[in-house]
């Protein structure tokens, strides 16, 4: 195992993940959407955020926004093909995704991408952050976006889902 980057809850022997797994994430969303509809997919995203990613929530709770920045920096270093800038600003953490590694890979592979794919970034991150008093607003998608993480007490109005771009394969 590599020395533990404290920001990430799980460790691997590889410094960067295998891009081949991105097709399984997309296929998982499609399977759940097909079986349970959008409501089921939203439940999956809520559950994976609040249950699987609980160690991330705990760190964000303990450290606050610096841990949010630390997490996303470490996270995208481990995602193959990501081009991302993470900045800690006065009121929020801004994650500027210049090249989304997952969308880029799926397009390279000629895969049909679930149209609401990019909404998972909002719903999963919101589920991770909520118990820690952190929330997110996402703008853009389909290959590049900006994600702003706020303390919930200082966040702007609720997420406008129309600001998250639908993916066309």
């Amino acid at each position, binding site marked *: 195992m590599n020395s533990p980057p404290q920001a990430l809850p799980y460790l691997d022997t*590889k410094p960067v993940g295998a891009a*081949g797994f991105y097709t399984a994430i997309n296929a998982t969303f499609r*399977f759940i959407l097909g079986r349970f509809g959008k409501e089921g997919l939203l439940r999956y995203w809520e559950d*994976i955020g609040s249950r699987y990613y609980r160690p991330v929530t705990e760190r964000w709770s303990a450290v606050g926004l610096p841990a949010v920045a630390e997490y996303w920096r470490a996270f995208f270093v481990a995602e193959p093909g990501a081009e991302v800038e993470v900045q800690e600003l006065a009121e929020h953490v801004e994650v500027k995704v210049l090249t989304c590694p997952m969308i880029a890979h799926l397009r390279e592979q000629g895969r049909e991408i679930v149209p609401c794919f990019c909404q998972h970034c909002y719903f*999963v991150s919101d589920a991770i952050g909520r118990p820690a008093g952190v929330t997110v607003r996402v703008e853009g998608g389909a290959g590049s976006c900006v994600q702003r993480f706020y303390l919930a007490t200082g966040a702007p109005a609720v997420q406008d889902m129309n600001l998250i771009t639908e993916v066309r394969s």
Partner: protein
Amino acid sequence: MIGCYDFCGHYEWTFEWLREMGGDELVKKYWDEAIHQDSQRHAVELIVGEGIEGMKKYWAHTLEEEAAGYLNTVTDEVYRIDMHECPSKGFLIENGLQQFHDYCDHCIGWIGPLMKRAGFAIDHQHNHCGQCWWEMRRVDSQDAPSAAGKFSSDDVRLRAEWKKPGAEIDSFNHATNVDEKEILPPSL
């Protein structure tokens, strides 16, 4: 974003989420429909299209990308994998992640239906500790699974860790379905 660096963690977590939603049958449908027929359709194209040659191409790329500790042995009749250090199960063990009752079943859960489609059957055993072996032969082959050491110079069954404490061996004989599992008694 859900990422690929810890994919095996949330993949395993997802099995249990699906089981809670629809039982083991839903998990099996997921492995077949989402993984075999959708995610791994590049494997289908190679293996259905090219048989053993396709297996060589698919697993050479996949196991290298996942940084597996493994050995391939190929003849005209059989494609064999000895998995000495499964990166996927290894990730779960190292990180103490277990939600679903048998993560290792996912491999035959999607590879089984693929091999059936390609006209092959599988002899396979896994020990739930990150070691397993596979032999794929044409479905009409009369050959039995190989004796330990026959094909491979580093047959996983001859390694000490194959039967280390905690190892429980699930066995599949000429199978294409996860339901064809035989759980071997600890002494075998």
